[in-house]
Protein backbone atom coordinates (compact mmCIF):
# COMPACT_ATOMS: atom_id res chain seq x y z
CA UNK A 1 0.00 0.00 0.00
CA UNK A 2 0.94 3.63 -0.35
CA UNK A 3 1.73 5.67 2.73
CA UNK A 4 2.93 9.25 3.01
CA UNK A 5 6.13 10.18 4.75
CA UNK A 6 6.79 13.59 6.26
CA UNK A 7 10.11 15.36 6.76
CA UNK A 8 10.59 13.64 10.10
CA UNK A 9 10.18 10.28 8.33
CA UNK A 10 6.83 9.74 10.09
CA UNK A 11 4.13 7.86 8.19
CA UNK A 12 0.67 9.14 7.39
CA UNK A 13 -2.36 7.72 5.61
CA UNK A 14 -3.13 10.98 3.81
CA UNK A 15 -0.95 13.61 2.20
CA UNK A 16 -1.09 17.23 3.34
CA UNK A 17 0.75 18.22 0.19
CA UNK A 18 4.23 18.22 1.70
CA UNK A 19 4.83 14.49 2.06
CA UNK A 20 6.46 11.83 -0.09
CA UNK A 21 4.41 8.87 -1.25
CA UNK A 22 6.05 5.49 -0.76
CA UNK A 23 4.83 2.03 -1.60
CA UNK A 24 5.45 -0.75 0.89
CA UNK A 25 3.72 -3.97 1.87
CA UNK A 26 4.81 -3.55 5.51
CA UNK A 27 1.53 -1.84 6.35
CA UNK A 28 -0.81 -4.10 4.35
CA UNK A 29 -3.89 -4.75 6.45
CA UNK A 30 -2.82 -2.28 9.14
CA UNK A 31 -5.11 0.36 10.61
CA UNK A 32 -4.49 4.11 10.54
CA UNK A 33 -3.42 4.29 14.19
CA UNK A 34 -0.80 1.60 13.61
CA UNK A 35 0.55 3.18 10.43
CA UNK A 36 0.80 6.66 11.90
CA UNK A 37 2.93 5.36 14.78
CA UNK A 38 5.71 4.38 12.38
CA UNK A 39 8.71 5.92 10.68
CA UNK A 40 9.84 5.04 7.15
CA UNK A 41 13.46 5.96 6.63
CA UNK A 42 14.90 5.52 3.16
CA UNK A 43 18.64 5.73 2.56
CA UNK A 44 20.76 5.00 -0.46
CA UNK A 45 21.08 1.27 0.16
CA UNK A 46 18.39 0.56 2.72
CA UNK A 47 14.92 1.19 4.02
CA UNK A 48 14.24 1.08 7.77
CA UNK A 49 10.68 0.88 9.11
CA UNK A 50 10.26 1.16 12.88
CA UNK A 51 7.78 2.47 15.43
CA UNK A 52 8.25 5.92 16.91
CA UNK A 53 5.39 5.28 19.32
CA UNK A 54 5.22 2.50 21.87
CA UNK A 55 4.78 -0.69 19.86
CA UNK A 56 2.55 -2.38 22.42
CA UNK A 57 0.03 0.45 22.04
CA UNK A 58 0.15 0.23 18.25
CA UNK A 59 -0.22 -3.53 18.37
CA UNK A 60 -3.22 -3.21 20.72
CA UNK A 61 -4.85 -0.74 18.31
CA UNK A 62 -4.26 -3.10 15.39
CA UNK A 63 -5.75 -6.05 17.25
CA UNK A 64 -8.82 -3.97 18.15
CA UNK A 65 -9.15 -2.96 14.49
CA UNK A 66 -8.98 -6.61 13.42
CA UNK A 67 -11.62 -7.53 16.03
CA UNK A 68 -13.93 -4.83 14.69
CA UNK A 69 -13.35 -5.93 11.11
CA UNK A 70 -14.18 -9.52 12.05
CA UNK A 71 -17.30 -8.45 13.91
CA UNK A 72 -18.51 -6.43 10.90
CA UNK A 73 -17.82 -9.33 8.60
CA UNK A 74 -19.75 -11.73 10.77
CA UNK A 75 -22.65 -9.27 11.10
CA UNK A 76 -22.92 -8.72 7.36
CA UNK A 77 -22.28 -12.22 6.17
CA UNK A 78 -25.19 -14.45 5.11
CA UNK A 79 -25.43 -17.77 6.95
CA UNK A 80 -24.66 -20.74 4.68
CA UNK A 81 -27.98 -22.38 5.54
CA UNK A 82 -29.81 -19.32 4.15
CA UNK A 83 -27.75 -19.53 0.98
CA UNK A 84 -28.57 -23.21 0.60
CA UNK A 85 -32.26 -22.52 1.10
CA UNK A 86 -32.28 -19.77 -1.51
CA UNK A 87 -30.39 -22.01 -3.93
CA UNK A 88 -32.89 -24.86 -3.52
CA UNK A 89 -35.84 -22.49 -3.95
CA UNK A 90 -34.28 -21.18 -7.09
CA UNK A 91 -33.68 -24.66 -8.46
CA UNK A 92 -37.14 -25.86 -7.52
CA UNK A 93 -38.78 -22.88 -9.26
CA UNK A 94 -37.39 -23.95 -12.62
Amino acid at each position, binding site marked *: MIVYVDKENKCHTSNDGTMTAVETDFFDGKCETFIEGYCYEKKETSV*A*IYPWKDYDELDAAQREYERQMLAEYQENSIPISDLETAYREGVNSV
Partner: protein
Amino acid sequence: MILNMSGGGSNPLNFKVVGNPQPENPKGNTIWVNTDVPIPTCVLAPPFPGEAQPVEEGTVWIATGDSYDAAFNALKKDTIMVCPVGAMQYVSGAWVDLDAYLYNGAEWVQFSTARLFLYNKGDKCEAITGGWGTSGYSHRSYSLRSPTFNSTSVTIASNRATNAGAAGTLNAVDLTDIKTIKINFTAVSHYAYVYISNTKANPDSNAAAQVSANYKGEYSLNVSNLKGNYFIFIITFGSTQAPNTSATYDWIEMFR
Protein backbone atom coordinates in the same frame (compact mmCIF):
# COMPACT_ATOMS: atom_id res chain seq x y z
CA MET B 1 48.81 1.69 38.27
CA ILE B 2 48.79 -2.07 38.75
CA LEU B 3 47.08 -3.61 41.77
CA ASN B 4 47.83 -7.10 42.98
CA MET B 5 44.43 -8.22 44.22
CA SER B 6 45.88 -10.82 46.61
CA GLY B 7 46.63 -7.95 49.03
CA GLY B 8 49.14 -8.00 51.89
CA GLY B 9 50.74 -5.15 53.86
CA SER B 10 49.32 -1.70 54.61
CA ASN B 11 47.19 -0.23 51.89
CA PRO B 12 47.61 3.49 51.12
CA LEU B 13 44.85 3.28 48.53
CA ASN B 14 41.39 4.61 49.13
CA PHE B 15 39.45 2.27 46.85
CA LYS B 16 39.03 -1.38 46.02
CA VAL B 17 37.91 -3.36 42.97
CA VAL B 18 35.60 -6.34 43.40
CA GLY B 19 33.75 -8.76 41.13
CA ASN B 20 30.39 -10.47 41.69
CA PRO B 21 28.32 -10.66 43.77
CA GLN B 22 27.38 -6.99 43.97
CA PRO B 23 28.42 -5.76 47.44
CA GLU B 24 25.41 -5.26 49.68
CA ASN B 25 26.89 -2.69 52.06
CA PRO B 26 29.72 -1.13 50.09
CA LYS B 27 32.17 1.45 51.38
CA GLY B 28 32.75 4.60 49.39
CA ASN B 29 35.07 4.20 46.38
CA THR B 30 34.23 0.56 45.88
CA ILE B 31 34.45 -0.34 42.21
CA TRP B 32 32.23 -3.28 41.35
CA VAL B 33 32.80 -4.96 38.00
CA ASN B 34 30.04 -7.31 36.91
CA THR B 35 32.07 -10.49 36.38
CA ASP B 36 32.10 -13.99 37.80
CA VAL B 37 35.68 -14.56 36.61
CA PRO B 38 38.21 -14.17 39.45
CA ILE B 39 40.28 -10.97 39.32
CA PRO B 40 43.98 -11.60 40.13
CA THR B 41 45.22 -8.20 38.97
CA CYS B 42 43.67 -4.83 38.24
CA VAL B 43 45.24 -2.16 36.06
CA LEU B 44 44.23 1.49 36.12
CA ALA B 45 45.56 3.33 33.10
CA PRO B 46 44.57 4.96 29.84
CA PRO B 47 43.97 3.72 27.21
CA PHE B 48 42.56 0.22 26.86
CA PRO B 49 45.10 -2.49 26.06
CA GLY B 50 45.60 -3.50 22.47
CA GLU B 51 45.22 -7.01 21.16
CA ALA B 52 49.00 -7.56 21.30
CA GLN B 53 49.18 -7.28 25.10
CA PRO B 54 48.22 -10.65 26.56
CA VAL B 55 48.08 -10.60 30.34
CA GLU B 56 47.13 -12.93 33.15
CA GLU B 57 43.71 -14.55 32.79
CA GLY B 58 41.11 -12.53 34.66
CA THR B 59 43.05 -9.25 34.68
CA VAL B 60 40.70 -6.28 34.86
CA TRP B 61 41.67 -3.06 33.12
CA ILE B 62 40.00 0.11 34.37
CA ALA B 63 40.51 2.74 31.71
CA THR B 64 40.86 6.28 32.98
CA GLY B 65 39.90 9.41 31.14
CA ASP B 66 38.56 12.90 31.66
CA SER B 67 34.97 12.25 32.65
CA TYR B 68 34.18 13.21 36.25
CA ASP B 69 30.95 11.20 36.46
CA ALA B 70 32.61 8.54 38.63
CA ALA B 71 35.76 10.38 39.78
CA PHE B 72 37.25 9.45 43.14
CA ASN B 73 40.33 10.14 45.26
CA ALA B 74 42.57 7.10 45.04
CA LEU B 75 44.65 7.88 48.15
CA LYS B 76 43.86 7.80 51.85
CA LYS B 77 46.12 10.68 52.84
CA ASP B 78 46.96 12.76 49.78
CA THR B 79 44.93 13.32 46.62
CA ILE B 80 45.10 11.67 43.26
CA MET B 81 41.77 11.95 41.47
CA VAL B 82 41.01 9.01 39.23
CA CYS B 83 38.31 9.23 36.52
CA PRO B 84 37.28 5.72 35.43
CA VAL B 85 35.59 5.66 32.04
CA GLY B 86 35.55 1.96 31.15
CA ALA B 87 36.34 -1.55 32.30
CA MET B 88 37.43 -4.68 30.49
CA GLN B 89 38.57 -8.13 31.60
CA TYR B 90 40.95 -10.56 29.92
CA VAL B 91 38.96 -13.79 29.56
CA SER B 92 39.99 -16.82 27.49
CA GLY B 93 42.43 -14.86 25.40
CA ALA B 94 40.30 -11.82 24.65
CA TRP B 95 39.36 -8.53 26.26
CA VAL B 96 35.68 -8.34 27.16
CA ASP B 97 33.76 -5.17 28.00
CA LEU B 98 32.16 -5.19 31.45
CA ASP B 99 29.41 -3.34 33.25
CA ALA B 100 31.24 -1.53 36.06
CA TYR B 101 30.14 0.84 38.82
CA LEU B 102 31.66 3.09 41.45
CA TYR B 103 29.99 3.47 44.84
CA ASN B 104 30.40 7.14 45.72
CA GLY B 105 29.20 6.79 49.30
CA ALA B 106 25.54 7.31 48.38
CA GLU B 107 24.80 5.41 45.18
CA TRP B 108 26.29 3.26 42.44
CA VAL B 109 27.44 5.26 39.41
CA GLN B 110 27.91 3.24 36.24
CA PHE B 111 31.02 4.16 34.24
CA SER B 112 31.32 1.17 31.93
CA THR B 113 28.80 -0.76 29.85
CA ALA B 114 29.23 -4.28 28.53
CA ARG B 115 28.78 -4.62 24.79
CA LEU B 116 25.88 -6.78 23.76
CA PHE B 117 26.35 -8.82 20.64
CA LEU B 118 23.88 -11.17 19.01
CA TYR B 119 26.62 -12.45 16.75
CA ASN B 120 30.29 -11.51 16.79
CA LYS B 121 32.76 -12.91 14.26
CA GLY B 122 32.18 -16.58 14.91
CA ASP B 123 30.58 -16.22 18.33
CA LYS B 124 26.85 -17.03 18.14
CA CYS B 125 26.30 -15.41 21.55
CA GLU B 126 24.19 -18.35 22.60
CA ALA B 127 23.69 -17.08 26.13
CA ILE B 128 21.48 -14.37 24.60
CA THR B 129 20.33 -15.85 21.28
CA GLY B 130 20.07 -19.56 22.04
CA GLY B 131 21.96 -20.00 18.79
CA TRP B 132 21.13 -19.16 15.18
CA GLY B 133 19.24 -21.17 12.57
CA THR B 134 15.85 -21.67 10.93
CA SER B 135 14.31 -24.07 13.44
CA GLY B 136 10.71 -23.11 14.17
CA TYR B 137 10.64 -20.37 11.56
CA SER B 138 8.24 -20.23 8.63
CA HIS B 139 8.12 -17.64 5.90
CA ARG B 140 5.13 -17.62 3.60
CA SER B 141 5.53 -20.26 0.90
CA TYR B 142 9.33 -20.15 0.87
CA SER B 143 11.30 -23.11 2.09
CA LEU B 144 14.09 -21.91 4.33
CA ARG B 145 17.71 -22.89 3.79
CA SER B 146 19.83 -23.01 6.91
CA PRO B 147 22.73 -20.58 7.29
CA THR B 148 26.36 -21.47 6.73
CA PHE B 149 28.56 -20.69 9.72
CA ASN B 150 31.95 -19.56 8.46
CA SER B 151 34.84 -19.09 10.88
CA THR B 152 34.08 -15.39 11.45
CA SER B 153 30.80 -14.77 9.63
CA VAL B 154 27.42 -16.18 8.67
CA THR B 155 26.23 -16.64 5.08
CA ILE B 156 22.60 -17.06 4.07
CA ALA B 157 21.80 -18.06 0.50
CA SER B 158 18.90 -19.06 -1.73
CA ASN B 159 19.34 -21.28 -4.78
CA ARG B 160 15.81 -21.40 -6.20
CA ALA B 161 13.02 -18.95 -6.79
CA THR B 162 11.00 -20.85 -4.21
CA ASN B 163 13.44 -20.80 -1.35
CA ALA B 164 15.23 -18.32 0.85
CA GLY B 165 18.44 -18.31 2.86
CA ALA B 166 17.79 -17.35 6.44
CA ALA B 167 19.11 -17.18 9.98
CA GLY B 168 17.13 -16.29 13.06
CA THR B 169 17.74 -16.28 16.79
CA LEU B 170 16.47 -19.52 18.23
CA ASN B 171 15.41 -17.71 21.39
CA ALA B 172 13.53 -14.44 21.61
CA VAL B 173 15.73 -11.62 22.88
CA ASP B 174 14.66 -9.04 25.46
CA LEU B 175 14.81 -5.65 23.71
CA THR B 176 13.33 -3.67 26.58
CA ASP B 177 16.46 -1.59 27.30
CA ILE B 178 17.80 -1.67 23.73
CA LYS B 179 17.66 1.45 21.55
CA THR B 180 19.36 0.25 18.37
CA ILE B 181 20.41 -2.94 16.65
CA LYS B 182 23.26 -2.73 14.15
CA ILE B 183 24.36 -5.35 11.67
CA ASN B 184 27.41 -5.40 9.44
CA PHE B 185 26.93 -7.08 6.08
CA THR B 186 30.24 -7.93 4.44
CA ALA B 187 28.44 -8.99 1.26
CA VAL B 188 24.93 -8.67 -0.20
CA SER B 189 24.27 -10.02 -3.67
CA HIS B 190 20.74 -8.60 -4.09
CA TYR B 191 18.67 -7.78 -1.00
CA ALA B 192 18.76 -8.90 2.60
CA TYR B 193 16.09 -8.14 5.17
CA VAL B 194 16.31 -8.01 8.94
CA TYR B 195 12.96 -8.50 10.68
CA ILE B 196 12.25 -7.95 14.36
CA SER B 197 9.20 -10.03 15.21
CA ASN B 198 7.54 -11.45 18.32
CA THR B 199 6.81 -14.68 16.47
CA LYS B 200 8.77 -17.11 14.32
CA ALA B 201 5.76 -17.51 12.03
CA ASN B 202 6.08 -15.27 8.97
CA PRO B 203 8.35 -12.69 10.58
CA ASP B 204 7.85 -10.25 7.69
CA SER B 205 4.06 -10.11 8.04
CA ASN B 206 4.41 -9.84 11.81
CA ALA B 207 7.44 -7.57 11.94
CA ALA B 208 7.46 -4.84 14.54
CA ALA B 209 10.45 -3.31 12.74
CA GLN B 210 12.58 -4.12 9.73
CA VAL B 211 15.52 -2.91 7.72
CA SER B 212 16.56 -3.90 4.21
CA ALA B 213 20.04 -3.83 2.71
CA ASN B 214 21.06 -4.03 -0.93
CA TYR B 215 24.77 -3.52 -0.45
CA LYS B 216 27.46 -4.41 2.05
CA GLY B 217 27.94 -2.13 5.03
CA GLU B 218 26.64 -1.30 8.50
CA TYR B 219 22.90 -0.93 8.95
CA SER B 220 21.08 0.19 12.04
CA LEU B 221 17.48 -0.19 13.18
CA ASN B 222 15.76 1.85 15.87
CA VAL B 223 14.06 -0.51 18.33
CA SER B 224 13.71 1.95 21.21
CA ASN B 225 9.91 1.58 21.25
CA LEU B 226 9.93 -2.19 21.43
CA LYS B 227 9.61 -3.66 24.91
CA GLY B 228 9.82 -7.34 25.70
CA ASN B 229 11.02 -10.36 23.75
CA TYR B 230 11.55 -10.45 19.99
CA PHE B 231 13.16 -12.73 17.44
CA ILE B 232 15.79 -11.30 15.11
CA PHE B 233 15.47 -12.88 11.64
CA ILE B 234 17.64 -12.26 8.57
CA ILE B 235 16.61 -13.49 5.13
CA THR B 236 17.43 -13.24 1.45
CA PHE B 237 14.79 -14.42 -1.04
CA GLY B 238 15.22 -16.22 -4.31
CA SER B 239 13.08 -15.06 -7.24
CA THR B 240 12.39 -16.04 -10.83
CA GLN B 241 14.79 -13.37 -12.01
CA ALA B 242 17.41 -14.13 -9.36
CA PRO B 243 17.14 -17.59 -7.83
CA ASN B 244 20.66 -17.38 -6.38
CA THR B 245 20.94 -14.67 -3.76
CA SER B 246 23.20 -14.44 -0.74
CA ALA B 247 24.24 -12.22 2.13
CA THR B 248 27.03 -12.47 4.68
CA TYR B 249 27.29 -10.69 8.01
CA ASP B 250 30.01 -10.77 10.64
CA TRP B 251 28.52 -8.98 13.65
CA ILE B 252 25.21 -7.86 15.07
CA GLU B 253 25.33 -5.59 18.10
CA MET B 254 22.68 -4.14 20.39
CA PHE B 255 23.05 -0.70 21.94
CA ARG B 256 21.37 0.55 25.09
